[in-house]
């Protein structure tokens, strides 16, 4: 149930972001809204829920982006695998530590995409663009993930964990 709710929240946020960014020029302020959902599911619900969330979020991201087929799925699954491996090593005790993890994951995601483009296809034309946006994306995602974490915790307490 929780996994389904988180996935629906992620999908709604991403579709909203796509529609809004056409009206309001977000550019460097564009957050990576799928990442906090993937990480929350992986860290707090386990690898199985994390994988299902990652797959759903990644396919929607591929649908809403002109990124080459498979590229966003590849980087998100890689981030999921790293998160699943670090699950017992990193202790997320507050929204701020969650924000740090999300920001780091966005930087890892950008670097993975860059490495994938260069090593698998030899494409370097978009490299500067990806490097240029990596840090702003991470910072903005960090701030947004604080709000998302608070909202998800509120949802958990109010609706999803009610006895």
């Amino acid at each position, binding site marked *: 149930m929780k996994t389904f709710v988180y996935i629906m929240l992620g999908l709604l946020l991403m579709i909203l972001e796509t529609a809004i960014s056409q009206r309001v020029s977000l550019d460097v302020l564009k957050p990576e809204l799928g990442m906090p959902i993937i990480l929350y599911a992986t860290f707090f619900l386990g690898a199985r829920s994390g994988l299902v969330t990652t797959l759903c979020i990644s396919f929607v991201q591929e649908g*809403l982006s002109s990124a080459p087929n498979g590229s966003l799925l590849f980087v998100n*699954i890689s981030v999921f695998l790293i998160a699943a491996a670090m699950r017992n090593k990193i202790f997320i005790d507050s929204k701020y530590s969650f924000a740090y993890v999300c920001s780091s994951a966005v930087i890892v995601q950008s670097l993975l995409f860059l490495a994938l483009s260069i090593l698998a296809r030899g494409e370097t034309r978009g490299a500067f663009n990806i490097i240029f946006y990596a840090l702003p994306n991470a910072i903005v995602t960090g701030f947004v993930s604080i709000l998302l974490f608070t909202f998800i915790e509120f949802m958990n307490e109010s609706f999803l964990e009610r006895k």
Partner: protein
Amino acid sequence: MRNSIAIVIAILVLVISFLSFTNAPFVARSFASVKNGLNSFLGPALNVVSKPVEAISGGLGSYFNLVGAKKENEELKSKVDKLFLENQRLAELERENARLRKLLNFTEKKPNTMIAAVVIGEDLKNWFRCIIIDKGKKHNIREKTPVVTPRGIVGQVVEVDLWHSKVMVLNDTNSSIDVNIEGKNTRGLLEGTGQNTLKLKYVIKNDDIEIGDKLSTSGKDGIYPKGIPVGIVITANKNKAGIFADIDVMPFNNFKQLDEVLLIKK
């Protein structure tokens, strides 16, 4: 145990996505069809969400315009200034009228070759410059269809789903377009930079080009028809090393403010 199964499945998906990215024949085709199937649900969802977003942004725009108009009214005390502004507005309307009439003539000459589409979204990632339009396979849209506005070229369709399509905009880093300098015998390749300006490449320093020159499509790339306006030269540096000049171009379209576009059917 359950976690181990999830990790194994994740590694399998990782391999499949990598093969799809590298265009391994069977995997890439299967992945594309799965993705297209799932994307069929995204178009209607995006259409539904974009309507209230459009309404809210329209309402906010009207409010800000009203505030602006009030301030402007206070500032415009003298009658001469008012008349001057009115005059400017009329001139702008006249220019717009002429431009639209030109477009109307253009579409009337070939009524079956143009399809109007509404822009419903923008690429989720800021690594790419892409817009999403509300026309797809259902409307006979195909990949590589040129997309224009009355001002000029916007880009080309790169991905078509059932209800929506993705248009790669000129300033995407993967975009290239063959252009001519209007009224001159100079040709070059216009490439996206990911920023607002474009780079005109392979123009030799001896070629006749200067700031303010207008560019239009040459029709030689097999995608865009000939003679559609593209942009204007804003810098032309011939002092750098090498045989080619360093030229920046500002596109005629503001890709951040596109509401409707036209697709040219081939």
